[in-house]
């Protein structure tokens, strides 16, 4: 199912080009960004059309390069938008340029964060910077995502999630959440596609944390996922019972959860030996069907399954993206893997 294509560049980010939900097409074009090269590139690839008949099971077209574009410095994050622009020197230190580590788009607004601890807001139709939140963080901000149209969530090197309300003029976050134990740096964050208060993060210790932003200061569940840094976490955009994570230890995990139908969540409790979890408090409104399966936390009851998606051990998997039934990921072994039959 998986085929590796070696591309002579270490891949730091891959993203599918979005397809409209109405069409039943599977995505076939993705972009990759490279890093650690003397000349880094953003390349666009196409995986061609699947054979129209279902008999062509397992037909794998190699990704073909469509075009590429030079990029100064390592590509640290990619988002797809319909317009393209270049803002130089947005992130900087007093004496030097600082790497920008994360980008989030909510057309036409673009938010970036960087190692200089700044949050910068751009608009696609304006030349200059729209807003800068100086000194948003004393440590490096690693990732950013939109929670609502006016709210963004950032994660940093000291294990904190910060919620920023962009409508307000203040330079401080509206909320800070963190683990009460070791302040492990967090590297990635993703929001549940339907329920905007549920957020998943991953960090240096490879633990997958699911948070409920409305409630309290604590993650809802912690799961041991990887043995090294987790670089990316993604909810499946249309089927959010599925979650994907990739890590420095060379594995890509597919998490599948299903909510049990027998017991209401607040009656479940207990601990699992390799999972620390909190049993759910009954949320306001209490209708079980709205409760996300992710907030149950107890694997034995909510049947959380994990599968490895890559055939064998590779160097670090730096990035993944999933859309429909297609998964693409890029590794430090300079290979791209495409899987077109992800069971979701």
């Amino acid at each position: 199912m998986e085929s590796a294509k070696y591309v002579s560049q270490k891949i730091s980010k891959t993203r599918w080009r979005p397809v409209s939900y109405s069409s039943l097409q599977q995505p076939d074009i993705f972009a990759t960004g490279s890093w650690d090269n003397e000349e880094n590139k953003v390349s666009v690839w196409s995986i061609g059309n699947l054979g129209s008949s279902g008999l062509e099971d397992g037909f794998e077209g190699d990704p073909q390069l469509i075009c590429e574009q030079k990029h100064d410095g390592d590509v640290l994050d990619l988002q797809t938008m319909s317009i393209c622009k270049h803002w130089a020197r947005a992130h900087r230190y007093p004496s030097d340029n600082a790497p920008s580590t994360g980008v989030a788009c909510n057309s036409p607004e673009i938010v970036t964060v960087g190692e200089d601890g700044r949050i910068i807001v751009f608009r696609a139709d304006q030349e200059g910077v729209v807003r800068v939140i100086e000194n948003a963080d004393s440590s490096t901000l690693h990732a950013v995502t939109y929670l609502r149209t006016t709210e963004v969530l950032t994660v940093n090197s000291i294990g904190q999630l910060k919620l920023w309300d962009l409508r307000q003029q203040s330079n401080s976050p509206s909320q800070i959440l963190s683990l009460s134990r070791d302040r492990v740096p967090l590297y990635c964050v993703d929001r549940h596609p339907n329920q905007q208060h549920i957020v998943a993060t991953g960090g240096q210790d490879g633990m997958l944390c699911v948070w409920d932003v409305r409630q309290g200061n604590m993650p809802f569940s912690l799961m041991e996922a990887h043995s090294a840094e987790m670089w990316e976490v993604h909810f499946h955009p249309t089927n959010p019972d599925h979650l994907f994570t990739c890590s420095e230890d060379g594995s890509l995990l597919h998490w599948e959860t299903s909510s049990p139908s027998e017991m209401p969540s607040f009656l479940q409790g207990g601990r699992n030996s390799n999972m620390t979890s909190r049993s759910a408090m009954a949320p306001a409104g209490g209708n079980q069907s709205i409760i996300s399966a992710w907030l149950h936390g107890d694997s034995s009851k909510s049947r959380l399954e994990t599968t490895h998606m890559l055939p064998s051990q590779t160097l670090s998997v730096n990035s993944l993206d999933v859309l429909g039934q297609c998964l693409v990921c890029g590794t430090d072994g300079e290979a791209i893997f495409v899987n077109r039959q992800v069971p979701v």
Partner: protein
Amino acid sequence: MEEVDVEPTVTNIPEIRHGKHMGFAWGPGDILVYETHFKPSGYTLSGPGGSFIHKVRKDEDINSPILRKLFNESHHIFVGLQTINDDLPSKSKRPQFISISRNYRSVIRACMEELQQVAVSTRDTEKGTQYGNQVSILLAIELIWNLCEVLFIDAAPAGSLLLHLLDWVRLHKADVDEKAKDVLQSDSPAEHHNYWDVVVSYVLQGRLEEARQMLVKQATLQPASRNMYKLMDSLLSKMPFYNPGGTQTLTEFDVKWRNWHEEVDRYLKDNTFASNRHLELICKILVGDEDTLLEQKELLSTWYHFLVTRLLYSHPTVKPTDLHYYAQSCLTMFLDSRSVQEPLDSILLAAFEFDIYLVIKDCSIVLNNWWFVAHLTDLLDHCKLLQSHNLNFGSNMREFLLLEYASGLFTHHSLWQCAVDYFDHCPELGRACLELQIERVPLDTERKALKVLRICEERQMSEQVRSICKIMAMRALRNNRLGSALSWSIRAKDAAFATLISERFLQDYCAKGTFSDLDLIDNLGPAMLLSDRLTFLGKYREFHKLYGEKRFKEAAKLLLSLMTAKIAPQSFWMTLLTDALPLLEQKEVIFSADQTYELMYCLEELTSSLDTAASGGERPMQEEDVEQTKVELLRLSLARNLAMAIIKEGTVET
């Protein structure tokens, strides 16, 4: 010192003018060269010196994007090979080794094909020649590897040996199929000018079925000679081939083959095919006539093809140990006075002589990159074919080659990550080399530093972890990113650095009166315990918070404990005592009598140490005055507080 086997190549450095002296410095994989002002006597060249430093690199391949795929894919195969279970005896692992060898070869072939495509399609002639050269090198490499696989890894005994060699030759002589395709696609194949070439080539390669099919076409055109063709057809079909999986023993096969050989010889002596020179030629080949074979030099094109064909038709049961006799004689026969023995030929000859070391040595000299020898040696070592005799610098050959290869990889800006795995599998010197190299990887972004750190931590290289974290922390500190700096020192468990950062925070506080980066200090968590200064910082901030929340009693207790438990540095005591002032001045008694005594004690300790310090140095009058005033204020407040506290504690509530 060994004598040099080949003449060293001369590389001209552009931009350094002729006659100027060059200075140089060795780097890990290259040389830095620059122009000097040195004027040997007699020279009158003058003028400004060149202002460039030139980097001269021997290994071009590492920068080729297509060859990079070779490095990465073979890295994957290499790692897989190392993890094969060592418990099983080598015999049962042989099929695994063979399949790994085939994997390596298929990777080489894939690269070769891609290079070939690019070479053909490029318009730049210089690049085209360069690609072409790389393709021919890869071809040679694959040829050698394949032969090594047949002879060393597969180690086929007599009988199967020839079959494998036949496969080897067939694989590397692809033009026969192309010619055959041309011929078959023409209107009248039997009259195509290449027809007989194709038939003879098939016979030379032992592909008798295909030869027979081709001959049928000729036979239909010449009904008069039908009998001759039928005879030839039957001869070709009756030639025995050894079947390794069958029940026939080698001796039985040998007997059968000799019978067939005698039959063919009889027909030849009877001049059965004399009227058709082509069939006569084929018959002579079948009988194994050396002169006839030599006449087919053009079709054979290489001496090793000649060797295999000769063996096929004269000694099909050749033993591996006898191979080199035939190889040497074939080589000599094939090369006439005009052509010279190429390096490739000597390498193949060494392989036929089963001299693995010579093969590896010659390959190392000829190729400009250690990739081939490193991987091949590693595979042969796993097959237990290399005796572990030590070279005079302490490690065996496999390790030496792997280290050379990996060190070369490390100089590459991107492939260094692959190199790490190679070092891991060099038990003697690998770790030491890795420790040296990993510190020199340039760290441009945090993400790269994290990856390097992960590599070091997995291998318990604590020195390197500390040094890398220190570099990143210093950089963060210089850019005023105190939170980043702190998170780096936490990772390295570097108490000294954490102390440094806390000092910075405290200095900032003294200068500005407020804390910066509250989000960090408020949320230190267990990291606070890393260094005393850091703990103090956290607790001090807590004091401020308690004060802000008007929980004075707790604040007071905390403040006192900071001094009595000696968590606070003495230099800061003045500030702490000054912080205590507003608490002392409150209407309500906050400090108890005991606590007040302790505060006084602290104050006395402080002033006495200040006195001893002041008596030595000169301090400006103003500063002394301020200090004096502060101390006096404190003494006054303390005394007043003591009074109130004693009264309060002595009062009995009614």
